[in-house]
């Protein structure tokens, strides 16, 4: 608000000078190094795709007789891709509801003083190396699963998933799904916990003031508010499960089949586990075929992760605006 008090008009602002701001050498070096680091990361990511493609190329163009299955690359990778998606899907189906419940328990049910410790316990689940989960899966979970598999075959055998015959060792897709579920549980829980915690206190109080019970309050405010966050968390978990290698390589007994049967000893392998199992003994075009399957895995996980991140970022902008 300028008030005209009769002063002479201010001189026009000086024309923008062509001179550049002083840039100190220290600033230039520091800035250059940090930009360089950022660009390096982008180059590495592009390099991952590029080098995988270059090394996959010989397998794509190779004669069918040179390939591991002596047929075609597509027929080689397709059952593996199927197994990968199947195992990861089971894991998410088991882990996502559990993770939502656990996140709710930590944010809204547990005594506030305990909540931090409980969250840490869940985070430590994520810290256990996958090789340890693999050993645990084969030595502990698999033997215990045999009885469950028999029961499933006896009572739910009419479903294609529990067709049987049940494996006697427990090295089944079902056990892989459960191990993967344990491994991705902390990922989904962490994201869900974060969004549930962000539910504004105002809205929660509004629901309580209307006479809602705790669960009704959660259903009215916390769950709708956190929905997109939970979805993206589940997708991050899916991405993790798709790429998990060692636990699957140790536990699963595979055959060259495409089967929805989760409890038999004839399972489709997964891309990642197949690479780990075959890579050390492969040479020539077989290595290239394995790298080609790795490229497919890379593409699948990249797509899943990008969608998940896009959802999270959109949500962040949305909540930041309010």
């Amino acid at each position, binding site marked *: 608000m300028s008030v005209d008090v009769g002063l002479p008009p201010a001189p026009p602002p000086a024309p923008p000078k062509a001179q550049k701001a002083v840039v100190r050498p220290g600033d230039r070096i520091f800035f250059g190094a940090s930009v360089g680091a950022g660009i390096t990361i982008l180059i590495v990511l592009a390099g991952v795709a590029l080098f995988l493609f270059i090394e996959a190329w010989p397998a794509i163009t190779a004669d069918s007789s040179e390939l591991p299955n002596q047929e075609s690359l597509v027929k080689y990778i397709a059952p593996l891709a199927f197994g990968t998606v199947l195992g990861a899907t089971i894991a998410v189906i088991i882990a996502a509801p559990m993770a939502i419940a656990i996140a709710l328990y930590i944010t809204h049910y547990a005594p506030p003083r305990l909540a931090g410790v409980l969250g840490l316990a869940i985070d430590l689940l994520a810290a256990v190396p996958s090789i340890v989960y693999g050993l645990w899966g084969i030595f502990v979970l698999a033997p215990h699963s045999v009885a469950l598999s028999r029961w499933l075959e006896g009572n739910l055998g009419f479903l294609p998933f529990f067709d049987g015959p049940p494996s006697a060792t427990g090295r089944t897709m079902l056990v892989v799904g459960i191990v993967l579920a344990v491994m991705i549980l902390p990922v989904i829980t962490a994201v869900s916990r974060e969004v549930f915690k962000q539910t504004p206190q105002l809205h929660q109080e*509004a629901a309580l003031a209307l006479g809602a019970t705790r669960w009704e309050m959660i259903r009215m405010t916390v769950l*709708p508010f956190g929905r997109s966050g939970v979805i993206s968390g589940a997708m991050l978990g899916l991405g993790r499960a798709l790429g998990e290698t060692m636990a699957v390589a140790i536990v699963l007994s595979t055959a060259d089949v495409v089967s929805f049967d989760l409890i038999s000893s004839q399972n489709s392998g997964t891309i990642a586990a197949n690479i780990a199992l075959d890579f050390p003994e492969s040479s020539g075009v077989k290595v290239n075929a394995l790298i080609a399957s790795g490229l497919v895995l890379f593409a699948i996980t990249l797509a899943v992760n990008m969608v998940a991140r896009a959802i999270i970022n959109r949500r962040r902008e949305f909540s930041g605006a309010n």
Partner: protein
Amino acid sequence: MAKRIDVDQLNIYYKDFLAVEDVSMNIEARSVTAFIGPSGCGKSTLLRSLNRMHEVIPGARVEGKVVIDGQDLYAPNVDPVGVRRSVGMVFQKPNPFPTMSIRENVAAGLKLNGTKLRKATIDELVERSLVGANLWNEVKDRLDKPGAGLSGGQQQRLCIARAIAVQPDVLLMDEPCSALDPISTLAVEELISELRQNYTIVIVTHNMQQAARVSDRCAFFNIAGTGKPGKLIEMGPTQKIFSTPSVKATEDYISGRFG
């Protein structure tokens, strides 16, 4: 349906900290009672203890009695969920549920029943509540749009509609206009004057003029200093409090000498 509230020797604590000390007062039915006083004197705390909302904050507890219609709210067999159903609340900042439409917002409380209401009944109650909150004409064409798209004043009236939709006996308002512009404030104040005919209203306000405009009776709270508990200094008809208060502190506060 409107009911009187009798507060008897109420002490309110946060953990070991005594926030409000020894408050006794009667709040008349079908009238507007305003709580005034400097910041931190426990007005809002007391208000929230009238529908057991204060216990949402961990560590908060109460000694004494709050009697509505012969029922002590802090008796052992009392259910806070039922209390909040009978004693509605409007908050400082408008807080419509962001994921719900205008219609769903008003109907939110109605759905919290053991039995399902018919859709026609819900629609009628939604319309009634919106009319009652002076909002119907402004939103009737966009009931399915999100409640967050309304202006601040409209949102606050939507929250009032949401609160009266469940047909409470008492309506508590915690500085309902402090986040609103003057025009929206006027609309809400108009609404309060109308709602007085059907509800017992208790309003916390920092705005002296507002207390004078909307309230029938007025209660002045004060604290001796930080860390000391808030106390009820005096209570009476608004006209008397604002013209001839019996305590010096009240006069000082109202005439703007502190607070």
